[in-house]
C-alpha cells in the first residue's frame, strides 16, 4: 500500500477544464503534432473559461482527482471578450480557500494557453503531472463521508480510493 504513494509508480489523476477556443484547440494541436505527454490529465471542455464554476473543481477533488488544471485564452484573447478574467478572479479566491483547506498550491493551476500553443499544453501537463506525482495522492474523495456501516471505522482514517497506480484497473 505504501509504495503506491511513492512518486515512481503513483499515477495522479488530474482533471482539466479547457475552454473550447484556445486551450482545447491547443490540446488538439498538440495531438495533431503528435507531441507526447503524460496520460494523467483528462480534459473536460467548456465553451469558455468563464464557465468554470469552483463547484466543478471541488467536485473533481471530491470524486477523486489529485489535481485540477484550468486552461483558458490569454488575457485579452477571450473568444467571449472577458470570460477568462472572471475565471482568473474566481481562481485567486479559490486558491486562497483551498490553501486554508490544506490543499497544496500545485494541485490547482490556471494556465493561459492560446490555440497555437500546443507545446505549452505538453509542457504544462508534464510539469503538473510531475509536481502532483511528487505530492502524492490527495485522497479527498468522499473521505469520512461513508454511511453508518463504515462510519465508526471511517471516522478518523481517510478511506482508500480505487487503485490509481500505473494501469489501474477499471
Amino acid at each position, binding site marked *: *500500500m505504501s509504495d*503506491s504513494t511513492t512518486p515512481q509508480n503513483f499515477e495522479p489523476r488530474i482533471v482539466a477544464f479547457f475552454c473550447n477556443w484556445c486551450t482545447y484547440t491547443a490540446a488538439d494541436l498538440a495531438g495533431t503534432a503528435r507531441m507526447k505527454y503524460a496520460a494523467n490529465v483528462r480534459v473536460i471542455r467548456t465553451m469558455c473559461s468563464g464557465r468554470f464554476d469552483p463547484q466543478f473543481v471541488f467536485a473533481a477533488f471530491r470524486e477523486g482527482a489529485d489535481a485540477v488544471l484550468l486552461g483558458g485564452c490569454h488575457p485579452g484573447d477571450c473568444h467571449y471578450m472577458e470570460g477568462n478574467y472572471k475565471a482568473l478572479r474566481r481562481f485567486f*479566491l479559490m486558491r486562497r480557500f483551498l490553501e*486554508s483547506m*490544506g490543499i497544496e498550491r500545485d494541485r490547482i493551476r490556471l494556465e493561459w494557453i492560446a490555440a497555437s500553443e500546443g507545446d505549452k499544453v505538453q509542457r504544462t501537463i508534464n510539469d503538473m503531472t510531475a509536481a502532483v506525482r511528487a505530492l502524492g495522492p490527495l485522497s479527498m474523495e468522499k473521505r469520512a463521508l461513508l*454511511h*453508518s456501516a463504515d462510519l465508526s471505522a471511517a471516522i478518523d482514517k481517510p478511506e482508500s480510493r480505487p*487503485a490509481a497506480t500505473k494501469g489501474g484497473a477499471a
Partner: protein
Amino acid sequence: MSKPKVAFYWCAACGGCEEAVVDLNEAILGVVNAVDIVFWPVALDFKRTDVEAMPDKSIAVCFINGAIRNSEQFEMVELLRRKSQLVVAFGSCAHLGGVPGLGNLFGRDALTATAYHDVPSIANGSNVKPVEESKTPEGTLSLPKLWNTVKSLEQTIDVDYYLPGCPPPVKLIVGAVEAILAGKLPAKGATLAPDIALCDECSRKDTKPEKLTVTKFHRPHEIVIDDEKCLLAQGLLCLGPVTRKGCEGACTSVNMPCTGCMGPTSRVEDFGAKALSAIASIIEAKTDDEIVAVLDKIVDPAGTFYRYSLPASLLHRRREPQSEGVHKS
C-alpha cells in the same frame, strides 16, 4: 384515530433550535394538542430506553437538530432513524453541519489542545486532557468518543426532509408541522423552505443597481452602513444572493450582511463554492494585482463562505497532513 407520534432530539447544537420551538409561543399549545410528543428531552421526561422499547417506524416524524460529532450522538440518531417513519434535519447544524462544523478546519486534537492547554487561563501544568477512559481512585470513568470530523445529519443517517436556518424561522417550523399533519409533504429529500434566494424577499431589493459590481469590499465595522441600500452594493459581503429565503432578511433588517445560515437553493451543490464564484465574478478588476487587492479584503474565505456548511460541502473538511499509508491501492 390516535394522534401522530412526534419526537424531538438534539445533537451537537446550541439549543437555539429548541428555543425556536418554544418561540412558537401560543401556537405550541396547538401543536401539543395535535400530536403526541413521545420524546423531547428538553421539555419532557422520557428516556432512551422508552425509545428502544418502541416498535420500529412507530414514530411518525422525528425532528433532529445539531451536528453529529461523537459516537453517542451517532448511536442515538441511528436508533431514532429506526424508530421513525420520517426524519427531519432541523436547523443549520443538522442540515449542513452548522457553526460547529467549522471544527472541520482543524480536527479533534487541535480543538482539545487549545481548550485544555493553549488558552491563557488554563492552570494545567500536568497537561491533563479529557479522555475516553479515566481511572479514579474509586473506579473508571468514561466519556464518549469525540470524532475528528463533524458531520451533517444526512452524512450519518438517511434523512427525509430538511428544515434550514440557524435557527429555523418560526414560520417555516409552523409550515413544516402543518404540512406533516396535513400529509402534504413534497418529495423525499426536499428542503422545507422556499427555493429562491434571499434577495427575493429583501427589503433592499429595489435599491440594487442594474449592473451589480464591487470595486472594494468593506467589513461591517469599517463603514457607516446605509439603512436602505443593497448591502452588497455597499461593498459588504452579503451572501443573500446565494442563500435560501425564508428568514425575511432578519440580519439585513439591522444592516448586517447575510451570513448564509439558510443554506443554498436546491440547484446549488456547494454553498461556499457558489458564493465564491458569484462574489469573485462581480468584482471590477483585471490585472492580477488589482484582483488580489480587491479579494484580499475577503479576509477569511473559508470561515465566511462555509460558516454553516463546511461538513456538507464537497470538500467536507480540511485535508489532514498525509501520513504514511494514507493511500491504499
